Structure formats: structure tokens, C-alpha cells
């Protein structure tokens, strides 16, 4: 019977092609939008994790309480030992130290006196070690605009707008004025090796990046760091795993000491109101997906309705020839299932192909980010998850089937006695 119906579909293009194409396109769009939203959410999390928060971040309790102002007088001490212990206890993670600091960049004139000054927000990370993952995490490999990355001690990168304001070009000299870990005045001369554009106004206006070795020297932070960041080695943020790891670390730390200098681990969600942002993002994402899938379902449902109505005459003839109403109805449902499955498979394959392509290559949205005040990535990549393989079945199969089922109810309303009269007209 299925084979008979399938042959019927193949041989009648009007019964197959239009419904099949409709389902395919609808499912393609559904799968792509699903992957796009998953990708946007993933990029948002990973961008913040790489640049600011890590999957987890260890700070002193005092530092964590005032983390927005990066109070380095409350920085972690004996960081090398701490990182060594972390690598032993949590080998599934990668760990690195960073220092954030504020200050002023002062540009000298020919006489060595102040020509211009600008406030900076500095990030110090391991950017001189060959192959350091920090270059990728800080997006320095993609963000460099002019000049080059620092290749030796004493070289810094600054944001594009800051460079313009201070009239600094690669090779220019500038003096950093900041505070040491102990509160003393910290000053040091640097060469600007490169100018970067993140596409995020806050970073381009005040951002400064230097090697952590240089920062430790000027800020008097030998074997100290404001923050130790950790990421899952496979790069995937898994909330439950991360929260369990943080709980374990914090239990050990609390058992050892409870003063403001004792270390505490914060997960990505614990920092910068990320929990609220992530939840909001998930809610918006869910709403968009729901509305889109609903819309696609209505379209495909309508397609099922139209398909059935278009076959009004054919159904009449079949009933007139003595085919039972239930048999016609079931045959139509079986055809809808076949079209739904074929269209969904085709749409899912095409949607996944497009999503995999954009997962690898991304969509450049830097043009939209010029005046962004919050940290968002300038490239959005789609993300294919296991759910993407099945999400298309909701509109593709279920909606087509429901559409046909509702339209098919008309079969039972047809009066056999008046069929020939209807067919005459």
C-alpha cells in the first residue's frame, strides 16, 4: 500500500513537488534559525569567557567583592603554586593568570614632557610565550589593525580610538602611570607595537594589552595576579560540570581559610551579571524559536490544507467509485507523512549544511558593533547541536500531518448521494 501511494506521489508532480519544496524550505529555515540562535548564544558565552571571565575565575574574596574596579591590592599571591595545584586537581581544565589594571597613558613631546594623556583599562596576559592560547582568547590574532603583536618585553597594544586621541602610531613611545599592588605609584615606558580594533567601543577607547611579565614588573606583582582564569580543555562550557568544580574548589578553600585574601572560584555565570544575561538570552532565544516554529508550522499546515482542498475532485471520484472514507483519509495521512519525512530530511540536510558552513566561517557583524558599549563578538557563528538534527520534524512532519488531518475531515462530510451531482459541475 505504501509503495502504491509512494509511486502515486512520484508520478504526480503536482501532489509531490509543491508540498515537498514547501516542507523542505520551511525545515531548512527552521534548522538554520535554530543553529544561528544557538551559535549567537554560544558566541556570547565564549566571547565573555575568553576575554573576561573564563569558564571559572579565581580571585581573592576581597578582590571578588570589588571585581569591577580590579583592586590589585587584593590580588592573589603565590600564583605559580596555585596554578600548579589547580593543574593537578583539575586536569580537565586549562589555567592561566591575568592582571587587570587601570591607569593613565602619558605621551611625551620632544622634550619628554606631557603632550597628551588618556585613561586606560589594561589587560595583562601571557602573550609573549610562543603558541600561547591567550592570543586567540584575547582575539589579538584577529583584532590587530596596525603594526604587529608585541614580540618582546616593553611592547604594548592599544585600542584604535585611544591611539587616535593620543596621536600614537605603532613604534610610538608612551608612559604608563598606575598603582602597584601595594598602592605606590607605578610608572614605566613602553613602545606601542600595534593598534587594535575590537569593534567594541569600550575596548577601542581605553583598551591596553601587555604581557603579564611586564605588568608584574611595573605593578610590583611578582608571582601575583589579580585573577586566575580556567577553561574546560575541550572549550565547551558545561554549566553543571563547571558549577560542581567551583563548589569543590570553594569547599576546599573555605576549609583552609576564610579571610578576604583567601581564594574563591566564580563561575562564568557568577560574574558580570552573566547569569541574568544568559537567562534572558535563553528566554529570548526560546521565544524566537517558538514563534518561528509556530509560523513555519502554520505555513506547512496551510500547505497541507491547500493540498487536500486542491484534491477535492479526485477524492470525490474515489468515494464515488466505492473507496471507503476511512481508506481515503488514511491514504492522505500516509501521503502527508511521506512528504513530511522526505521534506524534513531534505530540509534538515540543507539546513545543517548551511549551518556547518557558517559554524566554520561565521557572519561578520562588526559593522553593527561600532558603538556597542557591551562586550559582544564581531563575528557570529552558527552552532550545530544534536537538537538541530530533529528540530525540523516539528514543522516538517507534525504540521504537515496535522494540516492534512484537519483538511481531510471534509471527506467524512461528503454525501455519497450528491457526489455525481457535484462531479457534473
Amino acid at each position, binding site marked *: 500500500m505504501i509503495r502504491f501511494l509512494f509511486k502515486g506521489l512520484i508520478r504526480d508532480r503536482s501532489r509531490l513537488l509543491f508540498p515537498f519544496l514547501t516542507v523542505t524550505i520551511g525545515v531548512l529555515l527552521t534548522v538554520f534559525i535554530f543553529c544561528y540562535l544557538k551559535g549567537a548564544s554560544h558566541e556570547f558565552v565564549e566571547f565573555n569567557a575568553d576575554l573576561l571571565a573564563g569558564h571559572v575565575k579565581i580571585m581573592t574574596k*576581597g578582590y571578588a567583592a570589588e571585581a569591577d574596579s580590579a583592586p590589585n*591590592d*587584593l590580588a592573589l599571591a603565590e600564583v605559580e603554586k596555585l596554578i600548579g595545584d589547580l593543574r593537578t586537581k583539575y586536569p580537565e581544565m586549562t589555567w592561566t593568570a591575568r592582571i587587570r589594571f587601570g591607569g*593613565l597613558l*602619558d605621551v*611625551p613631546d620632544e622634550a*619628554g*614632557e*606631557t603632550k597628551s*594623556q588618556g*585613561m586606560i583599562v589594561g589587560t595583562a596576559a601571557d602573550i609573549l610565550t610562543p603558541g600561547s592560547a591567550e592570543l586567540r582568547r584575547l582575539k589579538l590574532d584577529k583584532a590587530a589593525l596596525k603594526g604587529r603583536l608585541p614580540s618582546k618585553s616593553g611592547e604594548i597594544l592599544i585600542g584604535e580610538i585611544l591611539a587616535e586621541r593620543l596621536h600614537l602610531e605603532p613604534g610610538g613611545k608612551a*608612559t604608563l*602611570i598606575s*598603582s*602597584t*599592588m*601595594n*598602592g*605606590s*605609584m607605578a*610608572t*614605566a*615606558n613602553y613602545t606601542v607595537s600595534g593598534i587594535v580594533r575590537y569593534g567594541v567601543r569600550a575596548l577601542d577607547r581605553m583598551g591596553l594589552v601587555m604581557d603579564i611579565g611586564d605588568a608584574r614588573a611595573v605593578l*610590583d606583582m611578582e608571582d601575583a595576579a589579580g585573577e586566575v582564569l580556567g577553561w574546560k580543555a575541550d572549550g565547551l562550557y558545561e554549566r553543571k560540570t563547571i558549577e560542581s568544580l567551583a563548589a569543590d574548589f570553594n569547599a576546599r578553600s573555605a576549609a583552609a581559610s576564610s579571610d*578576604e585574601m583567601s581564594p574563591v572560584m566564580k563561575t562564568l555565570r557568577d560574574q558580570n551579571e552573566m547569569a541574568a544575561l544568559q537567562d534572558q538570552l535563553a528566554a529570548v532565544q526560546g521565544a524566537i524559536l517558538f514563534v518561528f516554529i509556530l509560523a513555519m508550522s502554520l505555513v506547512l499546515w496551510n500547505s497541507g490544507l491547500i493540498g487536500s482542498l486542491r484534491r477535492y475532485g479526485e477524492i470525490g471520484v474515489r468515494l464515488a467509485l466505492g473507496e471507503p472514507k476511512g481508506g481515503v483519509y488514511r491514504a492522505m495521512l500516509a501521503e502527508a507523512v511521506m512528504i513530511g519525512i522526505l521534506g524534513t530530511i531534505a530540509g534538515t540536510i540543507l539546513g545543517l549544511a548551511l549551518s556547518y558552513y557558517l559554524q566554520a566561517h561565521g557572519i561578520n557583524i562588526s559593522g553593527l558593533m561600532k558603538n556597542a558599549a557591551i562586550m559582544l563578538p564581531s563575528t557570529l557563528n552558527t552552532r550545530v547541536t544534536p537538537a538541530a538534527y530533529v528540530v525540523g520534524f516539528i514543522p516538517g512532519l507534525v504540521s504537515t500531518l496535522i494540516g492534512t488531518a484537519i483538511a481531510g475531515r471534509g471527506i467524512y462530510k461528503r454525501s455519497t448521494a450528491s457526489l455525481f451531482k457535484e462531479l457534473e459541475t
Partner: protein
Amino acid sequence: MNLRRLQDGRSFAILILVPLFLSSPPAPAGQAAAPSAAEILKKVDDNAVPGSKIMVSSMTIHGRRGDRTIKAKSWIEGENKAFTEYLDPPREKGIKMLKLGNQLWTYTPSTDRIIGISGSLLRQSVMGSDLSYEDMMENRKWSTIYAAADDGAETLLDRPCRILKLTATVPDTAYEVRRIWVDIERSLVLKEERFGKSGRLLKTFEVKDVKQMSGRWIQTRALVRDVLKEGDGTEFVIESVEFEARIPEVVFSKASLRK
């Protein structure tokens, strides 16, 4: 003998850059009727040190990582000229600061740079202490920028004090309101609270010791606290002072910063 004073905004200067400690002559015999708040404030202003002095002072910053003591030598001419060289600890040794009127420069030997301190940098802490560069730059007489009102009386360091509430009469003051405890007899400020425009307490200044040196009463130890900052404040101690010292004019030039 000139009456001298140690006063708040200038108290920064007092102990770091422009040691403006107060001093006063011995109390006169007999007492007239109680002076008004405005008269007391005027007297405090009149006690400002117009002459020159060379002073060695130290400040101990009670920070969150422990205490840190910085020693400095200052050359001061009136209220507008001051030159300070930091002597100790080694990390700070050789850092110099020059104040000429409303301008301030600093020199650090590690960079061999003379850096002008202005704009947002003025609000930063000086050497990690509880005073800002802005505190240091305040050199106008209080009676010209504040209206004084009586706010009670209290005894501090066994000295009867009048409490005055000073409210800014000009828009560009660092602090909108100050409360000062004035030892009427010596015209010395023994305590001060500084408030912002919102009425929030920002800083406190408390004299811990007063000594008579060269016939003048001098506040030799004081504690300044930035109440918005963690820590137990910054303690200033005047170790020695030479009044009416002869200071070559070249000291108050940018050239002397690099010497």
C-alpha cells in the same frame, strides 16, 4: 610671631608636598567675647604660613596588604610653591613632585619623565595614600570659598574646640561641606570631616599630636582617612621642620625635577 596652621585640603600638602601644618603663638592673657564662626575661620586662614620652610615628614599608609611608610623631604615657599623628594623606601626613592600655583608635575627616575598631573589624574590617590592630588592642589583661603556656621563644641586632645560647618559658596570646591574642630586659643584645626555634594562623608582628618617647635604650635601627627576606601587611613608625621629657611629659587623649577 606668625600664627601658622595645618588645614585640611592643604593638609595633604602639609605632609606630603606642601607641609601646611598649623602653628600658633602662645595664648594671649585674658579672653574677649566669644568670636563668631566667620571670625574663627578668618583667624584660621590668617594663620597660614606665608614664609618658607624645609621639612622632613613620613606617611604611613595602613593598606589592606599591610603598612607602608614613605619618607619625604619638602621645600615650601608660601602656599603656591612646593618641591618634594621622596627618600624612602627604595621603590619610591628619587620620585619628585613640583607644585607651582595650580600646576603639578611629577618625575620618576625609572622613566626619566616629567609628567603633568591634571584632569582625571587629579582624583587619583597620591602614592596609595588616602589623599588625592586634588586635595593637594587646594590652596585658596577657606574664608573666600566657604560660609561658616557654628555647629557645637567639643574637647579634643584636652583642648576646647569650636565646631564649624563650612558650606561652599563657589561651585568648584573639591568638597561641598566641611566640618572643622578648631582649637580657638591656638587657631589650630584638630579635626575635620569632608563631605561631597550628596552629603556623603568622603574623608576625615584627625590630629593625633600637637607640639610646640621653635615657639610655634605644630600638628606633628595626623590621620587622614578616605572613608570610601578600605584600610585604616594614612598617618602623617612631621619629623623635623626648619622655618624661614633660605631656599634657592631654582628649587621650584622643572629643571630641579631631573637633578
